[in-house]
């Protein structure tokens, strides 16, 4: 499909007085798109609107050119892996995927073949005949992925698909996502972990408190984030002269003395700060023992971008 796969125009969804999504206008192109935001940002609400489980309270939404609510034609072309950890517990993984395929109109033999293939692709070929209630968290996550892709949909909507996976399974899942895109499918992957999405796709939609914060390539978002104040903690023998020297730097906003041997430095431009720091250390000779920089956590980045 050429053109956007999802078109949202002034999209809003609220639950009573709680706002799930507010005035969201965004277009999503084919390929992998990361839907990023902290918990409660509106990612799941947006996904549930995309898969037609919910109706917008206001605005419009088109998915693959269709109105998604309870749209059977769309469900033939769309696969959804929800976030909630729910499976048909008494069924085996294979039965679970096969049953959902049968509900999609596949014959028993074709459904069995497709289900087995999907379970194999997510790395559960050996466990697909075990009951779902005995699956580990990671296996359950992969079973949800299997059911979403078993009917070969052109759009996969995956709500936090990497949560609960161990590092090896996570890498396998990411490889699988890339393979699916190489096969011409589009993926919308939600996460609240920046680096997770970053390693998957160049295209990111940032949501925060139900609103669109930013949309673009990782590079563009990074540019926005580069202005986010970051903190560096330095442990040294002579903290006072070092603090004075650092305060003189243009991009250093604040220097805080912690105890007698540590400084907490807040800077607008982390990279420039690290470039300039060796010269200062050489000049002041503070006897630096250790230096740590806190990674920008997503919540604080979002808060910064909102300001």
């Amino acid at each position, binding site marked *: 499909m050429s053109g956007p796969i999802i078109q949202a125009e002034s999209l809003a969804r609220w639950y009573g007085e709680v706002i799930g999504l507010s005035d969201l206008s965004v277009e999503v192109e084919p390929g992998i798109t990361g839907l990023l935001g902290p918990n409660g940002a509106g990612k799941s609400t947006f996904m549930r609107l995309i898969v037609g489980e*919910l109706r917008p309270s206001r605005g419009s939404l088109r998915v693959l050119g269709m109105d998604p609510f309870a749209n059977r034609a769309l469900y033939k072309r769309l696969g959804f892996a929800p976030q909630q950890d729910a499976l048909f517990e008494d069924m085996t993984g294979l039965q679970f995927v096969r049953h959902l395929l049968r509900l*999609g109109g596949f014959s028993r033999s074709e459904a069995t073949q497709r289900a087995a293939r999907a379970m194999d692709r997510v790395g559960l070929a050996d466990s697909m005949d075990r009951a779902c209630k005995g699956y580990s968290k990671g296996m359950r996550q992969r079973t949800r992925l299997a059911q979403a892709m078993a009917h070969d949909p052109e759009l996969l909507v995956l709500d936090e698909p990497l949560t609960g996976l161990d590092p090896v399974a996570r890498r396998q899942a990411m490889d699988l996502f890339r393979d699916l895109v190489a096969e011409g499918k589009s993926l919308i992957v939600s996460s609240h972990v920046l680096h997770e999405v970053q390693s998957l796709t160049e295209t990111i939609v940032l949501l925060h408190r139900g609103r669109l914060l930013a949309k673009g390539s990782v590079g563009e978002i990074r540019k926005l984030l580069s202005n986010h104040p970051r903190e560096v903690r330095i442990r040294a023998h002579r903290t006072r002269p070092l603090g004075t020297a650092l305060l003189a730097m243009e991009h250093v906003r604040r220097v805080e003395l912690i105890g007698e041997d540590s400084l907490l430095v807040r800077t607008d431009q982390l990279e420039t700060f690290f470039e300039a720091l060796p010269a200062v250390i050489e000049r002041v000779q503070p006897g630096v023992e250790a230096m740590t920089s806190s990674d920008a956590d997503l919540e604080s980045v979002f808060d910064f971008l909102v300001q």
Partner: protein
Amino acid sequence: MQSAIALTFFSAGHHLSLLLRSKRTLAVLLIVALAPILSAVAIDPERPMRHLIPVSLMLTLSILAPLAGLIMGSSVLSEDIEAKTLTYLFTRPIPRASLFLGRWIACTLIVCSLLAIAAWLIGHPASSIHVPPDQLDTGGPATPVPEGFTGRFMLASAFAGAMYTTLAAGLSTWVRRPIVFGLGYAFVLEMVVANLPGSTQRMSMQYYLRGILLDGELGGFKRFNPIRKMEFLSLQDSVTRLSIAMVVLLVLGTVLIRRKQYLLSN
């Protein structure tokens, strides 16, 4: 259309296979089994109607059938809403109405079969009892079981099961805990309405179920105080009206399930 019908029957078959292995069906079986067990214990070979009246009218039609139907019917959607598996079903290209009707068929089949079997187990032994002519006391406790009673009791029980299953199924498309509302209707509202004198009782399902059982004639039931002064419809009229009510409930259920948004919290 053909695929929707096929999917309805696929949904029915699948739900039936799940239900047959479920604790819910076991619970319904135990509830329904109470009636023939109590009947076998209480039977008086000389006065079969004496135990048959309370067992059929009071126990089976007014208590056990509503309980069984409500428990089974609430499995149509509630379990998937509780377990949050509804998402999988509602994001498949199956009409929601097919899903609803298929599951309703499975539930109704089980409840109706169990209740009809229970009714036969109660009615058949009682009907086989021969009351000697010299003990015949028209309208009295020694009255023989009216002809065709077992068949009508089986039909009334099956209808009762189907009606209360349909009620719970319809409620499950509307409220989260259909069984609570269903029990409230069956054991609070209907218990009152069905036993009021006058035409008010026509607003209850029980009135029509009694109509099926009695087929317009009180016969051996005239000694049963709560109903002796009531008038009942014929079997045919009762079946027709209950069938219409059932279709209305099913239509409402299918309309609701197609339009409603089911919020499953994470």
